[in-house]
């Protein structure tokens, strides 16, 4: 049971990392990345292949993140004159297209057999402690990413990003370099997806195109939506919630009589759909909602109506 929980806990950390990436690119900068799983897969394959030919594991991880970021920035530049919807379409195509490349370029990716025997870091040295080590490592990465992102997003950079999200023209007239901000936000998001992919590949030691299907993109969008789409804490909360729903539906199926194996498998997707509909009905802004910068206590000095207007809910 412990090993199962550690496995799920590590996967949750990887989901949390993906969610953090989505909060930056979608929640803060308003750019929809429907090819999230493509960047995830790109990081996974990149690191797996590089370490296979002898690169150090840490280098593989960073290279996976860097490659994903480079592709992300390239998409941003490619779609710069188009409306935001087109970025969503382009990335959706990328996610599906990359999966087909993984499936068909057997010389590189092993096709549907995937790549097995991906080197785990320090596994021999740690033996029994290895699952604990990887669990801790994954969550440490999440904590580090969340800390760095919270610094970035609380700065004037983050404010400019949110302005781009809400109204690009206002941001441009305010003197902000809209294209650069978008590339940076999308690149950071893609880098986190790529890094998460690399973490995943070396954790499971085996990747195949089946690991990188569109469902994962949907799960992450659900996690971020559930938590409050612009909130880092919401992303972590959301990934915990999504993983709980996914895994508990696996056990719940045992208690519902008269279901075939296929029906039990679809119960997961069904539960996720119901959860999404319920969140949108009950709390469209997500559990944590919006957070705005406060002007501070001394802001309304001398204002006659200081208490007459209700404060903005956070």
């Amino acid at each position, binding site marked *: 049971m412990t090993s199962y929980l550690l496995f799920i806990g590590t996967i949750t950390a990887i989901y949390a990392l993906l969610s953090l990436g989505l909060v930056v690119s979608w929640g803060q900068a308003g750019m929809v990345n429907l090819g999230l799983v493509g960047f995830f897969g790109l990081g996974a394959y990149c690191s797996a292949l590089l370490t296979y030919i002898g690169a150090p594991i840490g280098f593989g991880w960073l290279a996976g993140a860097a490659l994903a970021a480079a592709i992300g920035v390239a998409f941003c530049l490619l779609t710069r004159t188009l409306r935001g919807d087109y970025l969503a379409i382009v990335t959706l195509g990328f996610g599906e297209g990359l999966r087909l490349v993984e499936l068909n370029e057997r010389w590189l990716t092993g096709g549907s057999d995937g790549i097995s025997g991906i080197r785990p870091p320090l596994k021999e040295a740690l033996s029994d402690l290895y699952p604990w080590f990887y669990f801790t490592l994954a969550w440490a990465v999440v904590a580090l990413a969340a800390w*760095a992102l919270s*610094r*970035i997003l609380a*700065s*004037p*950079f*983050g*404010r*400019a990003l*949110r*302005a781009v*999200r*809400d*109204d690009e*023209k*206002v*941001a*441009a*007239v*305010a*003197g*902000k*370099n*809209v294209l650069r901000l978008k590339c*940076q936000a999308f690149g950071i998001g893609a880098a986190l997806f790529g890094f998460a992919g690399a973490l995943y590949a070396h954790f499971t030691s085996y990747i195949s195109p089946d690991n990188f299907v569109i469902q994962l993109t949907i799960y992450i969008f659900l996690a971020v939506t559930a938590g409050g789409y*612009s909130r880092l804490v919401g992303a972590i909360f959301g990934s915990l919630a999504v993983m709980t729903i996914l895994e508990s539906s696996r056990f719940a199926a045992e208690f519902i009589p008269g279901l075939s194996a296929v029906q039990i498998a679809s119960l997961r997707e069904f539960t996720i759909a119901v959860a999404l509909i319920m969140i949108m009905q009950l709390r469209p802004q997500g559990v944590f909602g*919006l957070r*705005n*910068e*406060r*002007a*501070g206590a*001394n*802001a*309304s*000095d*001398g*204002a*006659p*109506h*200081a208490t*007459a*207007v209700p*404060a*903005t809910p956070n």
Partner: protein
Amino acid sequence: MTKTQLEIADLSIHFGGIRALDGASFEIRSGITTGLIGPNGAGKTTLFNCISGLTPGATGTVRFCGREISRESPQEISRAGLVRSFQLARGCENMTVFEHLMLYGPRQRGESLVSALLGNAEARRQEQALREEALDMARQLKLAHVLDNLVTRLSGGQKKLLEIGRVLLAKPKMILLDEPMAGVNPTLVQEIADHLVEIQKSGISIVLIEHEMELIERLCDEVIVMAGGRFLTRGSFSEIATNRDVQESYLGIRRQ
């Protein structure tokens, strides 16, 4: 005679078959308030959109303080000191009044990704200074009590005030105001007009699109009339008001 600050030469743009601007050419002098009037569809807002870089694709040239800006991006034009307001008081719906004011701070170090991540004493100092300016601006515009409200919760008049406030926080040399007093109650119109007088006194040139002739008369040192996407005539308000062409194309509709 003050010198030319904004020079528009042969500016044209068409949307489909409609020539919104049809060879508009005129200069706007610095340090004064210039009224831009003309019937609906004369191309006034389109002119603002082209000058500020938001509507690319116009032919002709625009020079601001001697620098050619007609091919530059909106942010470069804004940073050069030419900042426009929006007619419909556009806003970022998920941001507060305070955040809007802070957004317009020019050349903030903290907007670079590296200094945002690593922290930077200069960026913090700038941010603090900008914060003081924003709070001060909010007090002057009587927006201090709504600083933490989302802009979607503001009244129409408060949105217009915020529009002026944030434009000023960009430390502009010239501001393009698109009907800053439209749809606002009479008391607030007077308040906004007073603000505009103050702004001009502080050395910022104003270009004002406005349909209310009393306000044009009171605020503008010079009036430029546009019709059909072109420059029609210019002069002081009294010159314009007695101009036969203007009476026919614009004022006549209202005054006779």
